[in-house]
């Protein structure tokens, strides 16, 4: 089973301290909501968890059983939805998923990719270029990208961004399935409705 531990985690950008000495521990089936004012480091923390930025001090430790994974190994177990994560506009939604499946070394049947697009509410838009998608549709496609490899840890940064009511229902369903499957969930949000998805709350900032 996967577990995540933040050990005395510190992040600075040049001289500006984002946060210092964060400690937290999570296991499968648990969920954590990260809240705090703008600029308090919520998105940075999620990027640290996903290995996209390096900590200034401390460690993010992802372990399977007793074995600590390297940041590159850990990425096979992580899925991220974030506002600044973009998919290829000149490819269709289906082509994007097909590419990311191949580059991850996954053998995913075409019907499964289409099923994933259906799950996030993009049925019938498989072959449309992502550049022609609305911002809400792009957000839905990010969910499909994050779920493609069935990650044990799902990191959602401002997960309801640009989503309509149906999109928020899809998001709630994704979160419920992740919990039901014994996966972990880390959400960065200030939306009171989304805060309720977490078992524990980590508040950043003053």
């Amino acid at each position: 089973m996967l577990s995540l531990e933040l050990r005395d985690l510190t992040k600075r950008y040049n001289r500006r301290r984002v946060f210092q000495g964060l400690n937290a521990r999570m296991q499968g089936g648990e969920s954590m909501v990260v809240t705090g004012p703008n600029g308090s480091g919520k998105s940075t923390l999620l990027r640290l968890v996903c290995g996209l930025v390096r900590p200034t001090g401390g460690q993010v430790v992802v372990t399977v059983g007793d074995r600590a994974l390297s940041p590159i190994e850990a990425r096979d177990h992580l899925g991220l939805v974030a506002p600044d994560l973009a998919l290829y506009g000149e490819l269709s939604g289906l082509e994007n998923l097909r590419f990311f499946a191949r580059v991850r070394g996954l053998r995913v049947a075409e019907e499964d990719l289409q099923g994933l697009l259906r799950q996030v509410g993009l049925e019938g838009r498989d072959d449309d270029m992502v550049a022609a998608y609305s911002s809400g549709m792009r957000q839905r496609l990010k969910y499909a990208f994050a779920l493609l490899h069935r990650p044990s840890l799902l990191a959602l940064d401002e997960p309801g961004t640009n989503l309509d009511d149906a999109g928020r229902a899809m998001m709630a369903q994704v979160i419920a399935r992740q919990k039901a499957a014994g996966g972990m969930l880390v959400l960065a949000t200030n939306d009171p409705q989304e805060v309720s998805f977490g078992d524990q709350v980590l508040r950043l900032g003053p």
Partner: protein
Amino acid sequence: MGIRFSVWALEAWAVLAKDLQSEFRTWYALNALLMFAVTTLTMVSFSIGQFAVNSAVLAALFWVVLFFSAMSGLARAFIREEESGTIQALRLAADPNVVFIGKLAFNLVLLALLELVVVPLFVAFMGMGVANVGLFFAVLLVGSLGLVGASTIIAAIIAKARAKGALFTVLSFPVLLPLLVTAIRGTKLALEGSALADGMPELRLLASYLVVMVTASLLLFPYVWNE
């Protein structure tokens, strides 16, 4: 080991196929490469085309046109990922070395397409006669591989910088200088009709440059990619 290599090859092929698909839909890098090459070639041809130019000058001009055309387009493989914000998704999904090999192969295809245009145009516009065609293409092949090997890792390094275009050329020039000098010497020999054996020292040097550059890039790239 064999299985791991074939998995790597398949994943790198996926990166190459995606980049080619994107490129042929947008002509993002090819436009820049071809426009620069044709413009430079036309200017060179108009300015010195009427003079009798010796093989050393022709060989130098040929590689200068190739170098600057390559500089205008080869960096885009990484810059595009950075500017469009897709680099994060790619970093989350792909092994760094797979990305490097995929991008290297993509740049190689771009340079091959560029050479398909530049070589015949250069021969036509500048009246370049190639006496030893075999040596000419051998130098062109190994030199192009080295050019792509060096420019791909430099493109990855400068992708996050602000003045990307200027930085790319400035950083590439000293790294590529030994390759360019050797390739020019080899091309001159080919134009003059020297035997393949006479060009072997240049070919060996170019091949050594290629091996060193690609090996160093594979070792360095994961740090560049994950930083």
